[in-house]
């Protein structure tokens, strides 16, 4: 996937970190110290539809353009997460038990166009 840089307007992954101390959650979440949430943003022009990041090729882009030109009612494509990984948490539950859990699909690792 592509990570967003200053001059990029295309679909990319933006890094976003939630510091548990900053939001006042450090008293009940023991580890980690924050959540690398990240999110997807940017444009998905028609020729990029179905391209997960840079994995596809020039051929995919051309084929997409042909499909788009032939389609009667073209649809827009969205920039969405294409790869995610779990978040491991060690926290106190409501009964003050210490719980360790892995929450699936919480961290956005890569973005692409639908």
């Amino acid at each position, binding site marked *: 996937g592509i990570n967003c840089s200053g001059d990029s307007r295309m679909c990319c992954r933006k890094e*976003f970190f*939630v510091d548990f101390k900053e*939001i006042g*959650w450090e*008293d*009940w979440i*023991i*580890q*980690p*110290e924050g*959540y690398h*949430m990240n*999110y*997807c*943003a*940017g444009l*998905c022009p028609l020729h990029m539809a179905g391209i997960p990041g840079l994995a596809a090729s020039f051929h995919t882009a051309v084929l997409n353009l042909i499909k788009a030109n032939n389609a009667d*009612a*073209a*649809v*827009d*494509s*969205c*920039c*969405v997460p294409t790869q995610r990984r779990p*978040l491991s*948490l060690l*926290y*106190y*539950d*409501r009964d*003050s038990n*210490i719980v360790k*859990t892995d*929450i699936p699909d*919480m961290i956005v690792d890569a973005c692409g166009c639908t």
Partner: protein
Amino acid sequence: ASKGMWCPACRLAALAPTMQRDVLIALAKQSILSKLRLPDRPNITQPTSREALLMALRRMRVQRLDTATSPGMMPRLSLTLLSVLCTGSSTSRSVRLHFRFTQEPAGSTEILQATLYLFWAVPGPGTHPVTVRLLQSDPTGLNVTMASETRLEVQRTGWVTLDVSRAVQSLFGRGSQRLTVELEVMEDGGSPLLAGHRDSHWPFVAAQARARMPHRLQRR
């Protein structure tokens, strides 16, 4: 999305940066709480002290009874020992780390495997050579001898591991529980320590151990 519809991310992009941040934090909170099936954040009125937590973790070291032993024999306990850095001293090129295992009486534990974990923050691209020396001191702490020397090539920031099984085995065999590690770097080779790193990045040693059972004598 059908033609002309907004993608979810497009709506976010239309907001002012400060508003975007608030929305994302609210989303993160909501996402964590819903996945943990919590209606609201738990209200911790009496948080457990750090000491109590450490005590609980120490108790968890005794993980399971080893049932693989032959019938009629006493089962042996499998343990995992963790030792975090207790003190450290440094010069511009070298760092000394002292690890201490606070475990059972000397001689009662058999070390199966031990690994040293170091978080290295390299200053830039390229390969950074690091010399790791394992030093052992006698129980008085006065005489220090070198047990081994290893050269590592650190290429990027992250955790590096080193097998220190022999050194820790020899340590426990001699009744000592103190391991000293000396790290020597080239100039600007980065450092795994000491100031500026979060607790989670402190060096540590993890060892797998087994409780040594006394020999059983039978009278015939």
